[in-house]
Structure formats: C-alpha cells, structure tokens
C-alpha cells in the first residue's frame, strides 16, 4: 500500500529501457557521468508512454467493449428477443430519430442539466467555504470536521439512502415530525410526490454526499499555498472576501476547476439516489433524469437500442459540457 513500496517499479523498467541506448550512444568515458545526469530529453520518448500505459490498458479493458457495444447497439433494433440470441438488425439512425422526436427526451435533458449544474455549483461553493473554514480553525476542530465529513461520505450509499428516505418519509419521517413541532403543519405531507420538492430533496442528498470530497480536495489544495502568502495578505489587511477572490482563488484554480468538472460529470449521471427516491414514493415518469431514463428504457422496457442512443447522447453532452475545461487544461499544458 505504501507509495514507497510502489515506487521501485517506476525506476527499474526505465533503467533497463534507457540504459541500453544510452550506452550505445555515448561509448567510452562519458557513460560514467551519464548515469548521474542522463539527458532528460532523450528518455522522454518511451518513458511517459510506458507510465501511462497501465492506466490506458485498464480503461480500454474495462470500458472499451461497453462503449463499442453502446455505439453499435444505438444503430440497431435491439430488444428482448435480441437479448436471448436473435441477431440484431441494423436500423441506421432510427433509434436517434425516435428519441429526438419524443418530447420526453428534451424535458429530461433540460431537467438533468439544470439539476446537475445546481448540484455541482452548490457542492463546490459549500465545499470551498468548508475548506476555508478548515484552514481557519484549530487542529481539534479541524479533525472533528474532517472526520464527520468522512463519516458522511463513508456511509454506504444504500444505508445512507435508507436513512434519508426515512428522514423525509411522510408518515414516520423525522422531517415532518420536526416541522410539526416547530409549528409548521407538515404532518402527512409527502415531499417526494411533488417533482419540485422531490428534486430539492434529491439535491440536498447529492450535495450532502459530494461535499466531503470537494472540501477535502480544496483543503488539500489550500495547504499547498505557501503560508507567507496568506500572512502577507493578512498583514496588508485585505478583507476576507478580497483575500479569497484575489489571492486564494487564483492559487487553487487548478484544483478547483478539476473538482468542479468532476462534480458536473458525476452529477449529470446520477442514478442510484434518484432510483431509490423514486422507489420510495416519487412519481417515476415525472422525476426521471438521464440515468434513470436510460435504465427505464433498457432494463425497464427492454428497448436497448433506444437506451444506447440516449447513452451516446449523454456521453456527447458530457463531452460538450466539459469541453471548455479540457481546452483550458490543454492551454495550461501548452504554456
């Protein structure tokens, strides 16, 4: 587990690979000093690719087939019969025209994007504030904060959802009970029946689950800022918000943008939370997001062709949404 025990393989294969051409290129006395300071440029041809190769291999191994299958299936008539062995029939763009002429897809698309953006920005905002808070409090309070966040996050999804569903349950939920005690007559109100409150609750749960990751990443990013910079800012009496906006924000920008991007990607494909909330009393047809819609089309009604088409559309949307970030990442790389 320890990184130190993992490190040796990084060096050994490279040593073997690069030593040979090095010796061949510079024979004689130069090879001795060459071991201490071997030309970095020369070895950068094979080594980086060697280092990223395992990652690429795993990703291709696990995702290559599914993605290829989805692309192929989206152009095929693929129903329950095909699942039991009948060869699928190529239908061209029929699945795509079918889903795009169905207004349901557009509604769900808009809903998913809105839900995803609201959740992602709320998560990053709360996570960022929390990270700043952690930077300001003492060690003990920070530990309490970190541990409680990790507890929220470490709770298994199924157990966490059971608790949340239960907390908002209309008959015996703690939420209605509390509201009634405070004086709001909420007894017997089913929050999951209305799409608006359904998504509000879903958003609270999704944000609750993802804030710890964001807060801890941003906190780790903050710790990379040299203490002197912050001290200097404090001595110049920069107001809190100014300090954050002008000094801290630009410094954590790389971490921040990655975290926001990952959050958008994850929130766009949210599935389990929505599915379990629907099972607990939501009206499924009015509360579908892309993830549950794909599930309903495929596993639910056996139309895998349409489900694949929606999956591909969803993939393209994710690529489009994150395009800006990828571009800026690449520009940063090029600089």
């Amino acid at each position, binding site marked *: 587990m320890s990184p130190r025990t993992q490190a040796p393989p990084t060096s050994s294969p490279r040593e073997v690979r690069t030593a040979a051409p090095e010796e061949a290129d510079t024979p004689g006395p130069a090879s001795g000093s060459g071991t201490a300071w071997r030309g970095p440029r020369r070895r950068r041809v094979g080594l980086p690719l060697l280092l990223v190769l395992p990652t690429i291999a795993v990703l291709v191994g696990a995702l290559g087939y599914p993605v290829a299958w989805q692309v192929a299936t989206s152009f095929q008539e693929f129903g329950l019969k095909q699942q039991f062995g009948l060869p699928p029939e190529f239908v061209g763009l029929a699945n795509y025209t079918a889903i795009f002429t169905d207004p349901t897809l557009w509604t769900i698309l808009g809903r998913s994007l809105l839900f995803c953006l609201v959740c992602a920005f709320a998560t990053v905002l709360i996570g960022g504030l929390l990270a700043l808070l952690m930077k300001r*409090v003492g060690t003990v309070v920070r530990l309490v904060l970190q541990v409680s966040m990790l507890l929220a996050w470490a709770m298994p999804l199924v157990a966490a959802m059971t608790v949340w569903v239960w907390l908002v349950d209309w008959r015996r939920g703690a939420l209605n009970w509390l509201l009634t005690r405070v004086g709001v007559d909420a007894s017997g109100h089913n929050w999951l029946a209305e799409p608006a409150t359904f998504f509000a609750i879903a958003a609270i749960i999704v944000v609750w689950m993802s804030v710890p990751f964001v807060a801890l990443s941003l906190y780790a990013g903050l710790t990379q800022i040299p203490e002197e910079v912050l001290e200097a800012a404090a001595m110049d009496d920069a107001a809190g918000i100014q300090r954050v906006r002008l000094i801290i924000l630009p410094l954590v920008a790389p971490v921040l943008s990655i975290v926001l991007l990952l959050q958008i990607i994850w929130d766009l494909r949210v599935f389990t939370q929505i599915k379990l909330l629907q099972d607990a009393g939501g009206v499924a047809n009015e509360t579908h997001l892309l993830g549950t819609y794909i599930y309903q089309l495929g596993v639910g009604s056996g139309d895998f062709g349409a489900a694949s088409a929606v999956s591909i559309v969803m993939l393209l949307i994710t690529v489009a949404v994150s395009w800006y970030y990828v571009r800026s990442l690449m520009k940063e790389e090029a600089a």
Partner: protein
Amino acid sequence: MSTAPATTAPAADGAPRAAARTRQRWTSTRTYINAGIIVLWCLVPFYWMVLTAFRDVGYTFDQSFWPTHVTLDNFVTAFSTDLGNHFGRSLFNSFFIGICTTAIGLLFGVFAAYALARLNFRFKFIVLGFILGASMFPGVAIVTPLFQLFTNIGWMGTYQALIIPDISFVLPLTVYTLTAFFREMPWELEEAARIDGCTQGQAFRKVIMPLAAPAVFTTAILAFISAWNEFLIASQLSSDATAPVTVAIASFAGAQPHQEPYTAVMAAGTIVTVPLVIMVLIFQRKIVAGLTAGGVK
C-alpha cells in the same frame, strides 16, 4: 489557531489592535458556529443510522433522537446465516475488492499522474482527454454490455469482474487529483537531488513521494471509499459468493418476515462504516504527518 497570522504578526500600536482583537474574536466565534452547523448536517444521517442500529425491532419507528430500547439483536440478525444474510462473507469480499482496487488504481495512477504532470510527450493531450473521457460514460450504460461480455468469457460472479470495472471508475479520479498535486510540487528539489547524484526514479521516490504523501493518502481514501460503496455494477455482476456488502445490505432479510428489516440494515450499515472510520483515523495521522513534512519546504 484561526488568529495565528495576527498573533505572529509584529506588535503594532495599542488601540487599533484591541479593536482588531474583538473583531477577530467575533469572527472566530462565528467560524465555530459555522463549523458546528456543518458537523451537524454531516452527522445527522450517520447518527440516525447508529441510533436505529441499536434499537429494538419493535420500536423501529420510534422518533426519539436519543437511544431507546437498546439492543444488540440487530447485529445478530445482520450476521445470521440462518436468515440467508451472509454478511461476514460479503464484508470480506468488500475488503478484498476495495484493497485490490485501491492498490492497483493508486499504483497506476501515480505512474500516469507523474508522466502527465512532470514529463512532456507528444500524445499528452490525447491521453488526458482519453482519461477524462473515460469518467464520462454513465455507469448505467456500462452494466448491460459488461454483463454480456463477462457471461461470454465466463467471468460472471468472479472477483476480477468486479475489480476491473471498479479500477476503471477510480483511475480517472486518482490520475486527476494526483496530477493536480504533482503539478504544484517543488520540482526544483527533484532537480537538486539529481544533481546530487540520484537517478530520476530515486529522486522521485526519496524527495517527491514524501512530499506528495498527503495527496497520495487522501487519494487512497477516495479510491477505497468509492470501491467500498460501489453498488450498481456489483448488483448485476456479482454472485452470492462474491457479493460485496452494498449488495448484501440491499437484499437483506429481517428477523420477522413481511417487514422491511430497517434496523438490521442500519446495523449492517454501521458495521460497514466502522472499518472506514478506523481507516480514516489511521490515515488522518499520516495525512497530518505528511502535511507537516510538506511544510518544511
């Protein structure tokens, strides 16, 4: 601690300092109130889970916020193989899958992140885009084709059928967080070490790794938790023998038939969360140690 910058600042003239001090005191009080609210928000569901785990089945829907009708029966139910709850075995499965996923994901992730953050090579953008793209495909869309693929090659219900997809979910995350960290590292130290006679591998191992330790441990926790909590893939691709806890909990049977075994589920949830808590507490110390080590730079 929150007032550290001010207290270490050189002493200025009296009056504005006093005003600043009261202002700071108020700010720090507010800070602690905020901290308290957040702790509460994070912990309520967790507290509710533990509370119910120790509550008698008959009082499942007792709304008291304090422990009532305390019992350990739910834990017995959770482990009861007579009821078909093979919870012990699924705990082992989850550990096994989680550790394999974390170890391999982290190992590969460190390699790739080092290359992406530190080295220049021609296909870098393509690799970056590819890894990012891999995290974009919806999990729901992966299950069906994987199911078919694994059925065809006879992998259904095996560990590798669960571990490989899990690694592919974890890898983009580890690569991205580690790349972000590696980019901020003081690489001059590595150069210095190389001038002092280290190879690039040694410089990385002896100089950069210790500095990157907090990032690596944080990433390890992230990876382990995400593997530990994976549900969708496991629910479709595991067998009874390899089912992890998430699947086991979802298919729980209670002591009384025809009743949702809420309390047993909560007991199981509590047990599942405990290893993570312990791990977090252990890692926490390492993270803090890593942070102070990083501070020396």
